[in-house]
């Protein structure tokens, strides 16, 4: 039973993530990608005659089912069978977090900063609203995210996806080192 609650090592999680690529292709020529679901939601709810959202989103409904599966996967793996122990991150990272008063590593998200009270503060607004906006804006501009470019695009040996993935990391490294510490100090 213990096995259901334990986190999976990278060499188990990674190959399973990789196998979704051929599985989706085999099931119906579907390409792994999640950022497109954000586009479909826009097309379904607020197309507003914007060219990017003027298409028949119902033809892409499979990806909304796929996203629903992601939500369920999160419920099963992160809530019903959640890991009772703190995330086993390196002691260096623990030290870094504690210097900003983030002392708990239970669950997958730091509840000390990702909660409804901080959402209404400048810190939470920058982390969740501005951060989320960047995710949605940037992935559409780049026409793909970590799954569409980072997993599928690289698996299909597409060099533009390598440029994209390298840029994801450059942006992330810059913000994680120079901007996040400023926000966490707020």
């Amino acid at each position: 039973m213990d096995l259901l609650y334990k986190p999976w090592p990278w060499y188990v999680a990674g190959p399973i993530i990789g196998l979704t690529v051929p599985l989706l292709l085999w099931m119906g020529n579907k390409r792994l990608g999640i950022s497109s679901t954000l586009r479909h939601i826009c097309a379904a709810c607020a197309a507003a005659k914007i060219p990017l959202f003027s298409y028949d989103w119902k033809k892409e409904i499979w990806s909304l089912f796929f996203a629903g599966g992601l939500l369920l996967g999160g419920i099963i793996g992160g809530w019903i069978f959640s890991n009772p122990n703190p995330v086993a991150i390196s002691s260096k990272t623990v030290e870094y977090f504690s210097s900003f008063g983030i002392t708990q590593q239970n669950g997958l998200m730091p509840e000390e900063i990702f909660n409804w009270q901080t959402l209404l503060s400048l810190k939470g607004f920058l982390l969740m609203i501005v951060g989320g906006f960047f995710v949605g804006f940037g992935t559409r501009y780049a026409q793909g995210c970590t799954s569409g470019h980072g997993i599928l695009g690289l698996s299909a040996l597409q060099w533009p996806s390598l440029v994209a993935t390298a840029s994801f990391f450059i942006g992330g490294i810059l913000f994680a080192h120079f901007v996040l510490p400023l926000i966490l100090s707020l």
Partner: protein
Amino acid sequence: MKNLGYLFVGIVFGLALTKGEAISWYRIQEMFRFESFHMFGIFMTAVPVGAISIYLLKKFNIKTLEGEKIEKTKKDFHPGIIIGSLIFGFGWALTGACPGPLYAQIGSGSVVTIATLLAAILGTWTFGRIQHLLPGHR
């Protein structure tokens, strides 16, 4: 009925992301600080498994369930890929989430992440609205 199949693959993908802790804000910070191999290990196994699978599908001329030819995946380059990817990277470092993990984070009990998801939808919508003004768009 077929859509239930995609739902099922989504559950498996979501479980791997969640149990592999790839949706964890802590793990994403650790990755960007190069303080553990964990996340890099996930990428370095997922991509070769995907690449070998695509190669085998092609080599053995595997058809889809409905007997169609599997189409080639092609990603075209445009300068917006660089600009957009950098912006997404900024957001990834702040939220600890790519679009996929956003759904899984909400499922894992971080209900407040619904706000992050709504902001991401607004970001996508805003891109569509101002796309014609931006450099490097297609």
